[in-house]
């Protein structure tokens, strides 16, 4: 789960990384006394999407205008999201922008630390056109601190004050079970201070419980429902609802739907041991999505009991057309039950999806 900028900065501050003076407000009334900020302030909308700067989500203004500008910021939406939180920060006088990040390298199965003196908004461009400008050093996961030589190799001849920040970022990455901890830009100020001007921290979803972080704050009603039942669920914008067991099989079903020029309404993996009740919940959940015309149930596995699945589908009793493909124990009983209640069942996923495509013509 991606933390918001102010949450990420709180993580950094706890790890000993200097961050700009600032506070989060949820309404203009919370602005309070801004005299400590000096002549100018920065107002940054806290929304969970990228590209907020270009969308007008970051405002630099004289402190005297902060109230009006903050009020305006609370009134806009950025890529469809309302601005409910604004981070108010001191204006920084920047001498240079660096980039520093810790992420996970799948190929070497270990954290990798990245550093470049070419930080700022062009970092992705640099990564594409001049990747050698970004230094990358892997770290043995059994170490709990970055070795000093690694820090020296990363920052080279840049100001020594950067070193403790790099070390602290690595500690924060470990302490917070992060998949990514990124400072861009990491700034050197005109007065010689070094601080994290932005913060991007993604915490491993599998570690949220031990980190004491509440999962997914902004769920739609159906996403929350799916979460309650322990389904893996992603909303899409098509017309074919999909229930599968296993992430790979469900993705393959979605791909097949696209192959037939149809559009899937969702990804829903019911997980292992799909029983009567779970299947009924899953089918009802999809039937409640507006625009779902057809539901394809694709279940496979040695221990899935087809008669149970069939009863779940019949229990759900939804109005939409339900097309079933399943294989496993008691397949014949399952088929008989479905046929009896007027449902279609196919023995391959190709035929099941083809049947959905056929009906559209």
């Amino acid at each position: 789960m991606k933390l918001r900028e102010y949450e990420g900065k709180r993580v950094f501050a706890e790890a000993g990384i200097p961050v700009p003076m600032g506070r989060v407000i949820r309404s203009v009334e919370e602005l309070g006394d801004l005299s400590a900020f000096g002549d100018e302030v920065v107002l940054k909308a806290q929304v969970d999407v990228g590209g907020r700067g270009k969308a007008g989500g970051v405002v630099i203004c004289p402190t005297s205008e902060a109230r009006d500008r903050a009020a305006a910021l609370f009134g806009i939406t950025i890529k469809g999201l309302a601005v409910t939180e604004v981070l108010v920060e001191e204006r920084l006088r920047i001498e240079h922008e660096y980039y520093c990040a810790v992420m996970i390298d799948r190929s070497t199965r270990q954290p990798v630390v990245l550093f470049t003196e070419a930080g700022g908004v062009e970092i992705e461009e640099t990564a594409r056109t001049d990747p050698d400008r970004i230094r990358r050093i892997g770290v043995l996961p059994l170490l709990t601190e970055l070795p000093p030589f690694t820090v020296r190799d990363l920052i080279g001849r840049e100001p020594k004050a950067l070193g403790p920040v790099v070390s602290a970022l690595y500690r924060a990455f470990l302490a917070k079970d992060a998949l990514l901890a990124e400072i861009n830009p990491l700034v050197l100020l005109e007065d010689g201070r070094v601080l994290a001007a932005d913060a991007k921290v993604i915490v491993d979803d599998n570690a949220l419980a031990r980190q004491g972080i509440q999962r997914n704050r902004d769920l739609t009603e159906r996403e929350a429902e799916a979460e309650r039942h322990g389904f893996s669920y992603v909303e899409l914008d098509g017309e074919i609802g999909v229930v599968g067991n296993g992430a790979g099989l469900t993705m393959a079903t979605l791909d097949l739907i696209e192959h037939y020029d149809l559009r899937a309404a969702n990804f829903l993996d019911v997980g292992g041991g799909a029983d009567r009740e779970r299947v009924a919940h899953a089918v009802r959940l999809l039937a409640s999505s507006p625009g779902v015309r057809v539901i394809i149930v694709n279940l496979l596995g040695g221990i899935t009991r087809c008669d149970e699945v069939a009863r779940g589908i019949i229990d759900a009793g939804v109005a939409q057309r339900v097309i079933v493909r399943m294989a496993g124990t008691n397949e014949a009983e399952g088929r008989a039950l479905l046929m009896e209640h007027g449902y279609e069942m196919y023995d391959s996923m190709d035929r099941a999806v083809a049947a959905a495509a056929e009906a559209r013509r």
Partner: protein
Amino acid sequence: MILADKKTGVIVTGATGRQGLFHIRLMNEYAAEVGGIGVVAGVTPGKGGQDAAGVPVYDSIRAALKEHDADASVIFVPSGAAGDSIMESAANGLSLAVAITEHIPVHDTMKALAFARLCGTTVIGPNCPGLLSPGAAKLGIMPPHLATPGPVGVISRSGTLTYEIVDELTKAGIGQSTVVGIGGDPVIGSTFTDVLARFERDPATKAVVLVGEVGGALEQEGAASTSLPVVAYVAGVSAPPDKRMGHAGAIVEGGEGDARSKIRALEAMGVTVASRPSEIPALVRTLL
């Protein structure tokens, strides 16, 4: 056949949980059917002396190994303790640890894998269905009766999709040497590259089916590393960016790891890529 055979003795950790009990029974039913050793002991701390689906339970792998010979562990321990179970397997000299457990925090996985590597222990998974050598050995949860012995190795990041493909191969009369589910997590003990290297040394394996999905670049790295003929399938062509598609590792991030660019990269190195699972058997036949 790779990684395990009839002579592989197995310790199951997390033996007294629902999953552990159920799958000890299924693994030993299969072992009895094929004449293999199967599961010799279970481990659950604090439950030593009990019985789990017909095998004796010990408090630790160390204690189990005092009474039994074993080469491998199959791990069903809950996510918070599964990394520790991988390290326990490695520290006790088991040559193979198969981690079935899903939702292990990735920092735990990285640490456990680094430790296992120092001990020389091969890890399959986590978040995987394990492995199956038809007619010889089953370490994990794969339904064995969809498979049949033969010359094709299967390596997959998926579970049920693997069964689907194995079923298609078997129905087409194409048997499998070993089927390996390497796991759906972003960080896994054995990658396509690692498993392909084993298939390459296995005289019985003539071709490999590589089943990938969105996220990372392990598919391309694997295909580039082998001289065996490969048929690939990559799930998630229709997956939107920045959404986790069920598996922790199945996510297109920062514009990287999408299915189409993987398929392009695979095709550029001469790998045959199936556009849907049902095409795989016919494509494999052209390579045998």
